[in-house]
């Protein structure tokens, strides 16, 4: 039994690893191809099967007048918007989650759980639905095509995630710790900042990682709400989809866009292994 289980375990894990990695390997290989090597049928190994070229990669850094998309600016825009929106979402989300976890709210039939669901339910609306209203909203505020406008929208997108994770987190932190802080002379704010917050770093880190991921991979809002001044990475990359679909540069772009988040994956794993995170997600 254990032997069979071990065998099955390795078999399945390796199988899944192959499945996970396959599209990436394909993308790496494709990113060094050109039109002719793509349309000649599936090939995998450079030099042996096709003549590699850096064209797919160079497109990402050339200006438009030379047929490139120059992702450097959008790259930093994406990082800035994602991090800022995540940070604000965490701050607001953590505060709200703390209130929902520790205090009782009641307004008619609305109770804590309903408020929590209200936060999370913001993610039910498909982005396409919200895009036009958001457009008009930001247009009224004069925030279209601006980093601030995008951050504002991303907060709506990300705060529910932060609230969801942090409510869960706080529910598992004994409330007696806060009570002790109160008894020890802290008012509720001091109790939160001096005692609760320092002990919530793991939870906030998880929430932050999720926010970063969900912010980073959004395409739709970034697409609808910006024109020329502010462009985010996915929008810029999608603009590679011309009449000819350039498999090579899209592959290179896909790899470039996932690269920074691999660092995030390492951070998650590290904290997971150290056990710091495990308390944060349950």
């Amino acid at each position, binding site marked *: 039994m254990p032997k069979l289980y071990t065998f099955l*375990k390795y078999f*399945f894990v390796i199988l*899944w*690893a192959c*499945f*996970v*990695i396959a599209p990436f390997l*394909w993308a790496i290989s*494709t990113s060094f191809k050109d039109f002719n090597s*793509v349309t000649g*049928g*599936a090939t*995998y190994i450079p030099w042996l099967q096709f003549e590699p070229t850096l064209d797919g990669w160079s497109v990402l850094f050339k200006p438009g007048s030379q047929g490139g998309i120059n992702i450097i600016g959008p790259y930093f825009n994406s990082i800035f918007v994602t991090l800022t929106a995540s940070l604000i979402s965490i701050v607001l989300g953590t*505060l*709200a989650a703390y209130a*929902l976890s520790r*205090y*009782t*709210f009641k307004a008619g039939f609305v109770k804590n759980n309903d*408020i929590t*669901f209200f936060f*999370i*339910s913001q*993610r*039910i*609306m*498909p982005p*396409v*639905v*919200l*895009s036009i*209203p*958001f457009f*008009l909203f930001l247009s009224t505020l004069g925030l279209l095509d601006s980093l601030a406008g995008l951050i504002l929208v991303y*907060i709506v997108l990300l*705060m529910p995630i932060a*609230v969801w994770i942090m409510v*869960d987190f706080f529910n598992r932190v004994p409330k007696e710790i*806060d*009570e002790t802080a109160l008894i020890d002379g802290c008012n*509720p*704010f001091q109790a939160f900042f001096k005692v609760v917050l320092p002990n919530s770093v793991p939870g906030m880190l*998880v929430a932050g990682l999720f926010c970063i991921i969900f912010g980073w991979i959004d*395409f739709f809002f970034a697409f609808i709400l910006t024109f020329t001044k502010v462009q985010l*990475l*996915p929008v810029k*990359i*999608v603009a590679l989809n011309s009449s000819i679909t350039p*498999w090579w540069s899209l592959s290179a772009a*896909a790899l470039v*866009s996932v690269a920074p*988040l*691999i660092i*995030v*994956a390492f951070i998650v*794993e590290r904290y997971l*292994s150290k056990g710091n*995170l*495990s308390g944060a*997600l349950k």
Partner: protein
Amino acid sequence: MNFKHKYVFLLPGLIVLIGILIFPIIFTVRLSLSGWNSFNPGLDFIGFKNYVRLFTDDPRFWQSFFRLSFLAITTVFLQYIIGFALAHMVWKDIKFKRFFRVLFLIPMMTTPVIMTVIWRTFFHESLGPLNDFLSIFGVQPPWLSSPSLAKVSIIVVEVWQWTSFMFLLMLAGLLSLPKEPFLAAAVDGASPFKKFIYVTFPLMAPISIGAIIIRLIEASKIMDTVFVLTSGGPGTSTETSSFFIFIKGLREFQMGYAATASFTYLIIMIISLTIIVKVLTKVLMRE
């Protein structure tokens, strides 16, 4: 505890959220009562005409909704089973533990609209690697051009991308389980299978519910994958609600009607999610 301070904690987030959302939501409702289209932009009032059309004369919307239900439930179910299994497998002793863990986390960090392009080339029936590989076995499945396989392809991509999300939540859950119940089970000499059924699984029930719900919410918005992979085709065989709303709204520019479909969708989703939460809690928590 009950202090006035609680409002200071809750309200900033709530106000910001409501403040940003109140306009879009009211606007959507108002828009759904108008005939806004490419020719007549503006909030004229046409009563419930759009709703009548949606409920009596648009099987395509409802088909897309049921297709979405099928896809969402199937993909989330698979993600849960596989994610849980993988988490369980790399939970304890396994070689290259950290490598596998990091690797399994990566798919969810890819931008769907970009990664699906890669998948589209992957599934390409004459130039892609998948059928090139399968030709060894003499088969060339029409991945994107048969109505049933196109659904399978979408499920494959969704499962590829989002199993990592389940994996992360389940692994974190497993790593934070208390040790005592397992010691007790070990003392009782429970088999690994029994240990899983009677100890691990019940302890993981609360996190499972949370993870499934959040994934159902996210999976219901499936749109980029469909758009890039099949554009809803062949025929209409892979259209989902989001895609339908997208086509009506941002392609055909029937803004009023798209808002009607959206609002209806929102209401249905909130009701069905509430029911699903109740059912899941009953089933998984054995209450």
